[in-house]
C-alpha cells in the first residue's frame, strides 16, 4: 500500500467507536488508522504527512487530556477531542491547551468531518511553516562564524561602515561577508533578510546563535 497523502488517527478505547469512526472517515474519502490507547498512539510510527488526531478523553491507560499535555512538548498533529461524558471543565482545559475541537458523543458526522478537514488544513499549514523554518535553519547553519556575526548587525540597520567598525574589520571585508550572507540565506533583499532573522529569533545588533 502506498502511504496516504494525509492521515486521520483515531484513538479510542472502544472498538465499536473506532470501527464506526474509521468507516465514516473512509466513506468521506479519508484515510485513517485506529489505536486503542495512548501507549499505542505513542508507539505508532507516524507517516510524515499532514494528519490529525481524534482523541477520546477516557482512555484505558492515561487520560486523553494528559496525553495532550505530554504531546504539547513537541510537534503534534491538531487534536479533536471526543468524549462520552462531556463535562465543561475538561472541555475548557482541552481547548485552552490547544485542542481544535471538543465533541460530545454522539456527535453529527458533519460536525466531525468539518473538524477533521479544518484540522488537516491546519496541520498542512503548520507543517509547511515548519518545513520553511527548517530550511531557514539549515541555511543559517551553513554560515561561517563571521557571517553569523555580520547578520544581526546588518539586519539592525547599521551602515556597512558602522558594522565593520563594531567588528574591527575593513568595510570591504564586511561587504564580502554581507554578500555571502545574502546569497547563502537566499534573501532577495535586505527586507527579506530582516524577516528571516525575525523567524529565526535573531535579535537585531546582537550576536545570537540559534
Amino acid at each position: 500500500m502506498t502511504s496516504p497523502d494525509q492521515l486521520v488517527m483515531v484513538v479510542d478505547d472502544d472498538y465499536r467507536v473506532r470501527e464506526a469512526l474509521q468507516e465514516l472517515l473512509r466513506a468521506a474519502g479519508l484515510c485513517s488508522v485506529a489505536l486503542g490507547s495512548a501507549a499505542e498512539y505513542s508507539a505508532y510510527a507516524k507517516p510524515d504527512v499532514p494528519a490529525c488526531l481524534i482523541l477520546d478523553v477516557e482512555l484505558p491507560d492515561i487520560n486523553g487530556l494528559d496525553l495532550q499535555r505530554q504531546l504539547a512538548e513537541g510537534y503534534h498533529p491538531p487534536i479533536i477531542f471526543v468524549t462520552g461524558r462531556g463535562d465543561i471543565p475538561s472541555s475548557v482545559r482541552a481547548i485552552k491547551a490547544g485542542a481544535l475541537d471538543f465533541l460530545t458523543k454522539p456527535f453529527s458526522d458533519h460536525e466531525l468531518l468539518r473538524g477533521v478537514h479544518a484540522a488537516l488544513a491546519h496541520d498542512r499549514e503548520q507543517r509547511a511553516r515548519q518545513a520553511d523554518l527548517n530550511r531557514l535553519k539549515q541555511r543559517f547553519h551553513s554560515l561561517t562564524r563571521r557571517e553569523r556575526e555580520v547578520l544581526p548587525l546588518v539586519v539592525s540597520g547599521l551602515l556597512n561602515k558602522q558594522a565593520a567598525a563594531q567588528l574591527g574589520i575593513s568595510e570591504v571585508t564586511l561587504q564580502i561577508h554581507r554578500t555571502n550572507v545574502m546569497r547563502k540565506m537566499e534573501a532577495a533583499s535586505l527586507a527579506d533578510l530582516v524577516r528571516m532573522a525575525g523567524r529565526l529569533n535573531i535579535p537585531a545588533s546582537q550576536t545570537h546563535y540559534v
Partner: protein
Amino acid sequence: MSAVSLVADFTKYGIPGIDEVPFGIHVCHFYRAREDLVDALVPYFAAGLGNNERCVWVTPFSTDEATAALGRGPPGLGAMLDKGQMEIVDARCWHASTKGTDENSVVQFWLHEEEKALSKGYQGLRSAVDTSFLYADDWDTLMDYEGAVGDAIRDRRILMLCTYDAHRCQATGVLETVRTHQHTLDRRDVNWEIDSLVREESLRTMRARLEHATQLATVAELSAAIAHEVNQPLAAVASNASACLRWLSATPPNLERVRLTAERIVRDANSAAEVVNGVRALFKRSAPAAVPLNLNEVIEEVRQLVLEEVCSGEVSIENDLERNLPRIVADRVQLQQVMVNLFRNGIEAMERTVDVPKLLSIRSRREGKHYVRVEICDRGSGLQDPENAFKPFFTTKKNGMGMGLAISRSIIEAHSGRLWATNNQGWGATFCLTLPVLSSELQ
C-alpha cells in the same frame, strides 16, 4: 462509609448436597426415622464446629442418646460438648420450661443466646429444635412461635432448624409448618435439598443492599457513568449510520459497505439497549433476566472484548476452562459486566508489574455438586485489604468511581453466588466467584 455492609453472611450448612446458606434462615424438616434426623444433624453441627459457631440441640432423644449420636460423627464433636461450644437440651425439659410463656419470650431467649454466643467470640448461633412433644396440646402456640421466630432471626446470625416427627403431624399441620418457615429441608436419596426459597431470599436481601449502596452514589456520578456506557454504542451507531448514508449515495452505491455498516448499527443499538436494560435491572427492583448460560462462553466473549482494549503483547490472558462445565442460570449482560470488571481490574492491577510477565489467568471449575467456580488471577501488587475492595466507592484508581467491585458483588449475590478476593502467595490477587449450577444439570 457508614451502614452498608456488602460482606456476605453465609455459612456452610453442612448437610450433604447443600452448600452455603445465609445466616437468619428458618428451616423446617420432617423426619420419618431417628436415623434420618441423626444423618442430617451430625454434619449440620459439624459444620457449626468448623465455622466456630455456638450450637444448641433441643433433642427428642435423651441427652445420653444424643451425645452418643454426635460421638459417632466426626472427631471434635464430642470435644465441642466438653468445652461448652455445644449444648444438648432434652426437648421435654425445654418445652416444659417454656410452657405457659408467650412466643415473644421464647424468641427473646434465642436472641439472647445469639448475643451471648457473639460476645464469646463465636461466629453465630446454630440451633436444631425438636418440637415432637408439643403438637398434641399446643399446636397454635407452636405456630405463633414459629412465625415470630422467622421474623425475629431474619437479620441475626442465627440458623434455626426446626425438626418435626413426620408420623405425628397431620396433613394440615405440615402445610401450616411449611408456611411458618422460610424453607423446608428434604432428603433425596444420598443428598438433601432445601427448597428454592433460599435463593429468592438471598436475592431479596442482596437487592436491598445494592439499593442501599446505589443510594450512596450521587446522582451525578451514577448518571455520568451510565451516560458514558450508553453514549459509546450510540456514538458508534451515529457514525455508522452517517457512513451508511454516504455509501448509499455514492455512485455507484457501495452496497457491500452499506450492508456491513447496517449490521453494525443493529449490533451497537442492541448493545446500547442492553446497557440500559442492565442498568435498569441493577438499579431498580426488577429481577435479572435469568437464562441458562455456559459460563465458559461468557468468559471467552469477555476475553476477546478485553484483549481488544489492551496493547498487543502487553498483557496475556490465559484461559483454563473446564470442559463440560455445567450451565448456570444468570443474566448474560450482568455477568458480562462482572467479568469485564474483574478482567479490567486484573489488568489495571498489573500496570506497574515489571519483574514478571503480565499474565491474567482465568480458571473455571465445577465446585462440589452445586456450584461453578471461576478464578481470575493477576500478577499485580495484590490488595491491602481484600474485603475493603468491595466497599462502595473504595478505589485506588485515579479515575475510578469505586463502584465496580461493589456492584459486581451485588450482581453475583443476586444470582445466589459469592464473589471474594484473596492475595496470592507470590504475586497479585485472585478474585473468585461461585454460582449455582442450573438445577436440571445436577446429575
